[in-house]
């Protein structure tokens, strides 16, 4: 089965637009980012690689440290390393700005 993770980051500035980047290919991930009416960021991760919850939480936390946004984010992951995920988050945010 697919591992699903939900990570919430309270507060943050709402984003204006939505964006979609990436692809579910080996070592990569797809990312959907959309505005939300909630006063928080909600990140839903679906991944076929189990056991990396700590790394996911750390990468997401660092991203919100740098960019405190409120948004709905979905990540469909096929074994992207934290390096790739961090870059995709930046790319998605830029595409949504």
């Amino acid at each position, binding site marked *: 089965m697919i591992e699903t993770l939900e990570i919430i980051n309270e507060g943050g500035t709402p984003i204006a637009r*939505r964006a*979609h980047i990436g692809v579910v290919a080996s070592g990569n991930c*797809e990312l959907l980012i959309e505005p939300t009416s909630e006063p928080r960021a909600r990140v839903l991760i679906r991944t076929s690689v189990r056991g990396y919850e700590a790394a996911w939480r750390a990468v997401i936390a660092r991203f919100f440290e740098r960019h405190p946004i409120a948004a709905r984010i979905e990540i*469909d992951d096929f074994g992207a390393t934290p390096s790739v995920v961090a870059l995709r988050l930046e790319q998605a945010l830029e595409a949504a700005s």
Partner: protein
Amino acid sequence: MKTRISFAELSARERVRALLDPGTFRELIDPFERMRSPYLAEQRIVAQSDDGVVVARGTLGGENAVIVATDGRYLGGSIGEIGGAKIAGALECAADAWARNERTRVAILFDSGGIRLQEANLGILAVAEICDAIVALRAFTPVIAIVAGRVGVYGGMSIAASLCSASIVSEGARVGLNGPDVVEEEAGLAELDARDRPLVWRATGGRRRHAQGQATRFVTDDVDVIRAALHELAIHATPIAPIAPKIPIDPTLSLADFDRELGRRFS
């Protein structure tokens, strides 16, 4: 030196956007609709939000158009229930439009290994529906196949591509029914060494298919060139006659002999 834009380097979405007239791209059932395959999660595969298929409307040289594309990077561009339905549905809608006298040009960007094995019969049904839709649409308008990605087109989707009115193939693309590994396994190393990459491209690459009369246009990996070829075939061409092979194909020749013969005639 580098002024051409590589078509193969673009994502499926970017390819469709690049072919349609600037600013006219409107995606149907886009990733945000989250129409994902319901069958993959239980097989430990993450479903992509567009199921590896992009369907978009826009204009082509000012005329209404529908372009569909498979995403070769997601599960090899393979066709499952959802992606197949998106393609077949788009083609059927185009046929409906023609029935209402609304001209709609059509192109299909094939970058696909064929049927998605994980969805088995649903993939087969989907491809059957796609083939049906192509044939129905051909009564109204040329249906143009473009094979210019890194996967090429194989399996059931190569049959669908062959049913199109005309095709544009690139040098890097391969067109075949069975993949090289399958050919090697079934017919033996002497027939085809799948590791001999130049041979694989010589046997099934765009240049060969065009030389054999199985492809209408042979192009470089260049967005502008492909777009121009598409305009020519989709809009300006009169109904396209069936393609006659430039050389007679003796089905009893081994691949090696055929290759030698082709080399002799086209060197």
